[in-house]
């Protein structure tokens, strides 16, 4: 069983869900993030948050995949003061919703003082809600951005075991693991991290507090990167127990700290009943519904 702890399914198709289920993905976390262009109204965020909790969770369930999500104001849009304060207020409500397992993606993008203000405020929000945090690290000036991230996390007083720092590479991983935080890796077709580099990192650093994800979204990305990387690890002789830890147990245990879901139940397959509707809508278009015996 595989877990993709960072994937933006609102941007993906049912073909993706089918392929992910066929490749063994049984659970995902969809972090709230931006939509490729900035939103200009607070209300757009609210409808997006509702879709993560509603329609997207339903869509995933129709393919036997458990869908959890994180809520947050992403760093890019944190720079827009005209929406940021309103979104922060909304988040006080949305972090309390069932199925929300962390505050995220939060962090730095351009590493501006404004980003830092909302980053810190959302760590406080997570502490109040008893939720872990999922942190995006910047594409540009990554090493410095990651160092500042770890310093801010430490200063905030949130426990490192409640902190997942994502999008690591060869130059950031050691400091993240040394800090006691969990370390995520986004396996991308061309940027961020790839399968073979990930194999090398696992051989060097082991499996403890290590996670991988596809971070698939509306851009060129691949929702099957977790199974593909698991296979690459297998072919490189990495033990099955380590692969299982990285691709299932670690994400499960990290997000289970939220107390918002029963991790034991995840050992059982999610029964699919495609006869179900969500607010009158089905994912089917005339196909015979699949139903599993419960």
């Amino acid at each position, binding site marked *: 069983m595989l877990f993709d702890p960072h994937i933006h399914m609102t941007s993906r198709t049912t073909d993706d869900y089918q392929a992910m289920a066929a490749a063994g993905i049984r659970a995902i976390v969809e972090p709230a993030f931006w939509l490729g262009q900035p939103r200009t109204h607070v209300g757009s965020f609210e409808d997006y948050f509702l879709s993560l909790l509603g329609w997207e969770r339903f869509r995933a369930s129709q393919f036997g995949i458990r869908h959890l999500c994180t809520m947050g104001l992403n760093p890019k849009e944190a720079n827009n003061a005209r929406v940021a304060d309103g979104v922060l207020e909304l988040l006080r409500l949305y972090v309390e919703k069932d199925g929300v397992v962390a505050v995220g993606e939060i962090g730095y993008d351009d590493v501006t003082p404004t980003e830092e203000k909302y980053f810190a405020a959302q760590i406080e929000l997570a502490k109040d809600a008893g939720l872990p945090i999922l942190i995006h690290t910047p594409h540009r000036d990554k090493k410095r951005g990651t160092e500042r991230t770890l310093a801010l996390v430490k200063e905030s007083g949130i426990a490192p075991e409640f902190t997942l720092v994502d999008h690591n*590479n*060869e130059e950031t991983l050691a400091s993240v693991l040394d800090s006691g935080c969990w370390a995520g890796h986004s396996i991308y077709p061309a940027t961020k991290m790839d399968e073979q580099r990930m194999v090398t990192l696992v051989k060097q650093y082991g499996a403890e507090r290590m996670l991988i994800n596809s971070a698939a979204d509306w*851009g060129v990305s691949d929702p099957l990167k977790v199974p593909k990387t698991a296979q690459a690890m297998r072919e490189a002789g990495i033990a099955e127990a380590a692969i299982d830890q990285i691709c299932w147990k670690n994400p499960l245990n990290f997000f289970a700290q939220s107390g918002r879901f029963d991790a034991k139940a995840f050992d059982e397959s999610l029964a699919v009943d495609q006869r179900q509707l969500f607010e009158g809508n089905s994912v089917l278009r005339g196909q015979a519904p699949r139903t599993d015996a419960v």
Partner: protein
Amino acid sequence: MSDRAQALTSLVAERWPDAPAFFERVRSELSPAPGVGFRAAFASGPRRLGAAAQSPVLAPGSFSELARPHWSLTDYTRAALIALALEHVPLAEQPAFVLQLFEAGESGEQVSVLRTLSLLPSPDRFVEVGLQACRANALDVFVAMVAENSFLAFHFPPLNFNQAVMKAIFQGVSVRRIEGLEARITPELRRMAAGYASERRAAGRPVPADVDYITQYGA
């Protein structure tokens, strides 16, 4: 009418016979404040230019320092519209007005706003538009802000300027197209570029030549 609005509308009128009627209709939409009617004209107006819309314009002497050869008649027409509209927007509200035109614009509108930012009165006030543009994923919008545009080096704060340069490298937009880059290469920008080179090498990937240009400039 302001000198700038006069000069821009004249420039357009010399190249587009329907311009006087078009601007006249737009003027009727400006009071008490430019609203949806104005924004619709801003969006659609240049389309009415027909074949002339994308033709380059040889800038007259009054603009020669600010204008760039790649500006099209569309860009000038939109710049004229903004100049006309600003006469009906209180000074304190002008930055928010232009920001809204940018945010609610499709990419062609955004490109026109960005290219001609330097023509706005006291352009420093409109830097937020430029900062938002650098967060765009749409390449044509980002390019309009960073390439062949004097606004970037003149008005961006250091942090945002450095991020724009690094994003240009990421996006494959040559930093040689950034006007005034050399005067703004600082130790901090060199450090960021060197950090990126190190990251690329650690990933087994080639280092773009633009990175070396920055790290070695003046060395």
